[in-house]
Each structure stands twice: as C-alpha cells, then as structure tokens.
C-alpha cells in the first residue's frame, strides 16, 4: 500500500529536478522557457553560484513528443563552441539522477535588455549595447551558428556593462546541418522578430534572419532618421535588400554613432550640414572664433 506520506514523496519526485548526489544544490527559479527551467544553483565543489538549465518535464523519457532534451543538448554544444565575451559560457553538461538533461552556465547578474532600456539610458549607451550584441551574433555567424530568436528578452546586460546573448535553444548549427535554415521543419522564433522567410519556414533561410531581428531590436532603441533608416533596411522583407551580414549593419550603426553619413540614409543638404556641424563642432568653433577675432582686429587697427 502507498501511504499518504509516501504518496506525497513520490509525487514530489515528478515536480522538481532531482539533484541528489550531484555537485549542485538548487536555490531558486531564475526563469522558465519553452524547453526548460533555469535555476539559480550552488556548485558545491567550487563554492560558487551558477545557473542550471534543466529540461522541465519527464515527457521526453517516453519519446511521446520528445525534443526538449535534444534541444537542450544542442544548445549546450553550441554554447560550448562559441567562446566569446558576449555569449554565456557553459561549465558543465550532463544528466541528473532523475534522467533530465541539464547544463550549468555562468550566473549572469543584471537586467534583460528590454528592462534595461526602460531606465534612463542615453542613446550612445543603448547603441553601445546594441553593437556588442551585433559583435556576439557576428561571431556566431562566423562559426556557422544562426541564433533565430534574437529579441531584447534574450539579451542580458550585466552589472558591469557586460552584454550577453542568451537562449540559443532554437539556433541553427550549419556546421552540423549544412544549408538547413530551419531544424526539423519546425518554425521557430518569436513572431514579432521573425523574418518573413523564417516565418514561412523556408529551407533556404540563412543568417540574414538574425539581421532582420536585429533591425527590429534597433527600432526600439532610437528614432533618429538615420537610425530608423538603418533599422528599415535591416528588416527589409526581401533578404537580398537587407545588410548582407551583421558586420555591415554594425558598421552603419557605428558610423551614425561617430556622426558620419550612414549607407542606409540619403540626407538632405540641411541635415548633412547639421550633422557635419555637430561632428566638427569644436574645429568649426575654433575657426569661427579665429575669423571673428581676425575681423575685430582688422577693424580696430584699420589704417
């Protein structure tokens, strides 16, 4: 007979992950995603906090729907390969005593980009973060990985200004699946940030789906005309009309930050003069001052 206490005990075995006998102690839940739950945990061997991402259910064990466990393994492998300051590092990967797969990663303190941007940040600071996201994504592309779910919620801005791109669970790994735009014929991503070819599940969708998503993110950052033009070009519905890679997008944003002309925006003469005036404010002031002084002196000492 199963007594009441035993029934409670056995039920509890299905609710949370079983980390008994491992080096980790669960502390609290940091967040929940489609495939798993991220826990704040203590690594007792190294006496430090880590984040544990664990498949949240045991359904995978019966292979009825499957997928979450393999997606977690896929994500862990991608993260392990992408060693970059803008991509969260993986410390460990394995199976818990209850059969759930997990991976341990650096615990990042800070704010999600969407929360971070609601506070009082100036445009240069926001664009600085955006460029660091671009840098991480460009690095991933160079290693054959397409994120496919870029959005502010998947970017963490740390306490010391570090910027980390998270949630690589639906990323396409071209090194393993050459030419595969969508994995397992599934349409993945977040509708508001999805390029049309990604939303359609086109097999030839490529890294430019990330360019599109970054364009949507950029739209939320600032409303200056050149920035709007850059975002519009990045999120063009025709992939061939977009920036052809993230570096080109980042270069245009950097030009805007430096007060230079951007490729995506044709300026009117007055705008151009205004921009040049702002960019060369000090030399222009010096020249003007010099000219005024010169004129005054000429007038004072006229013969």
């Amino acid at each position, binding site marked *: 007979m199963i*007594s009441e206490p035993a029934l409670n005990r056995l039920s509890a075995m299905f609710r949370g992950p079983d980390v008994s006998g491992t080096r980790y102690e669960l502390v609290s839940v940091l967040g929940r995603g489609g495939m798993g739950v991220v826990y704040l945990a203590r690594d007792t061997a190294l006496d430090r906090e880590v984040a544990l991402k664990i498949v949240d259910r045991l359904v995978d*064990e019966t292979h009825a729907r499957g997928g979450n466990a393999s997606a977690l393994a896929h994500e862990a492998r991608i993260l392990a390969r992408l060693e970059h300051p803008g991509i969260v590092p993986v410390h460990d990967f394995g199976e818990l005593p209850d*059969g759930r797969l997990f991976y341990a990663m650096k615990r990042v303190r800070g704010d999600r980009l969407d929360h971070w941007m609601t506070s009082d940040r100036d445009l240069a600071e926001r664009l600085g973060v955006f460029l660091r996201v671009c840098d991480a994504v460009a690095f991933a592309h160079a290693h054959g990985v397409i994120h496919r779910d870029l959005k502010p919620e998947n970017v963490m801005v740390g306490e010391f200004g570090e910027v980390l791109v998270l949630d690589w669970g639906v990323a396409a790994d071209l090194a393993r699946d050459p030419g595969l735009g969508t994995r397992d014929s599934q349409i993945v991503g977040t509708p508001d940030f999805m390029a049309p070819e990604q939303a359609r599940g086109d097999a030839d969708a490529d890294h430019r789906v990330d360019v599109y998503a970054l364009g949507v993110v950029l739209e939320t950052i600032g409303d200056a005309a050149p920035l709007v033009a850059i975002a519009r070009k990045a999120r063009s519905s025709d992939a061939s009309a977009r920036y052809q890679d993230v570096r080109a997008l980042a270069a245009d944003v950097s030009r805007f930050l430096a007060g230079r002309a951007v490729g995506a925006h044709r300026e009117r003469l007055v705008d151009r003069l205004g921009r040049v005036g702002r960019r060369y404010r000090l030399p222009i002031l010096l020249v003007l001052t010099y000219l005024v002084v010169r004129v005054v002196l000429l007038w004072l000492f006229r013969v």
Partner: protein
Amino acid sequence: MVVAIRSPRTDVRRSAFDTLVTAYWKPVFKYVRLKWHATPEDAADLTQAFFLRAFEKDFFASFDPSRARFRTYLRLCLDGFVSNARKADARLKRGGAVRLISIDVGEAERELRHQAPNAVDDFDAYFHREWLRSLFASAAGRLREACVARGREARFALFEQYDLAGEDGERPTYAELARRLSLSAADVTNELAAARREFRRLVMEALREQCATDEEFEAESRALTA
C-alpha cells in the same frame, strides 16, 4: 489503452480492458464506498458490475479526449451507473454471479481505514489522488519485478525502505540503509537514484498506456510534474 478499448478485435479490447481495470478498480471501489456510502460488499459488487457493464456496452468507446480527461469521463460514467443501479435496486442482476475482475476488498478497506475518509469533501480531487496512488503502486510493482529479474533486489529494497516508507519518521537514514543492506554510502546514493529514475520511467510508461492521445498524455504529465 483507451484507443485499444475501441478495437474491433475482442482479444485486443480485453487486454486493454484488463489494463484499465488494474489502474482503476481501487479508485472506483473507494470512490463508491465514500461518495455513495456503500458497504464494502455493495461497493465490491458495484465495482464489478460497473466494469462488466462498461465492457459489455462499450461505455468507453464514446470517450472523446478533446472534451475531457479519461479519468473525469470514467467518473461521470460511474456516477450515472451507480445512480441508476440504486434506483433499480437490483444488485444481483447488475453483476450476477459473473466476476470480471479480481477485487481485494480487504486490501482496499485497510487503505481506507488509514485515509481518514470523513475528511473527503472534494470527490474529484479524491478520485484523482486515488488514481495516482494506484498508478504509483502499479509502477512500484513493476519496479520490483524488474529489479528482481536483473538481480538488483537491493535496489528495490532501498527504494521500498526509503521512498515507500509509511511515515516520514519511519524513514531510515542513508547510513542505516547502508548498514542494513551491507552497502557503502555512495552505493546507497547511486542505487536509490537509479531506482527513482526507473520508477519515474515506469510511471510515465504506465501513464502513456492510459492516455488516448499525445495531447492527453502531455496534459496528464504536465499535471503530474506541475
């Protein structure tokens, strides 16, 4: 199981029905005892008669998984059946001398005595809990068989003494378990983890058998792991 119950082949249907009865006879018996205030003998007769009638009349063939959980559907059928049977008051005619299933009334009664039956005020939750108890008991039985078949008796003994212990105060420590079974503390940890992993797998397997569709299985497993 629920799909197989609709099979035109009698042997397939009968086999699925046996699985269903194994999973549900005890929750049905206890539910009839408590909700319908039946005596143990009457509850045993009603349980027998309910499953017999369900098999003969294909009660469960009209179950639509998109509208309700199978458990809820079964309970509604049961309520209707007992209500009609009470009105007709024809106990012998219901089941007669035919015995479709084996019911251990003594065991079910012993469990009932331990469960403070007066405290039941939500019979839906009660039925669910009894079904869960039956599911776990069945998986524990399968675990015992699997461990014995593989010569891993100690693994099941650990699980039985630690996780199936009656009261929390009766649970031995890992050190006590190690002493009792002549194992190292590390072996206790590893074997217990392996037993739990196997138990969880068997529960999910049994749950899968009981569900008609992937969606129902998904919903049931979500409820179990929520």
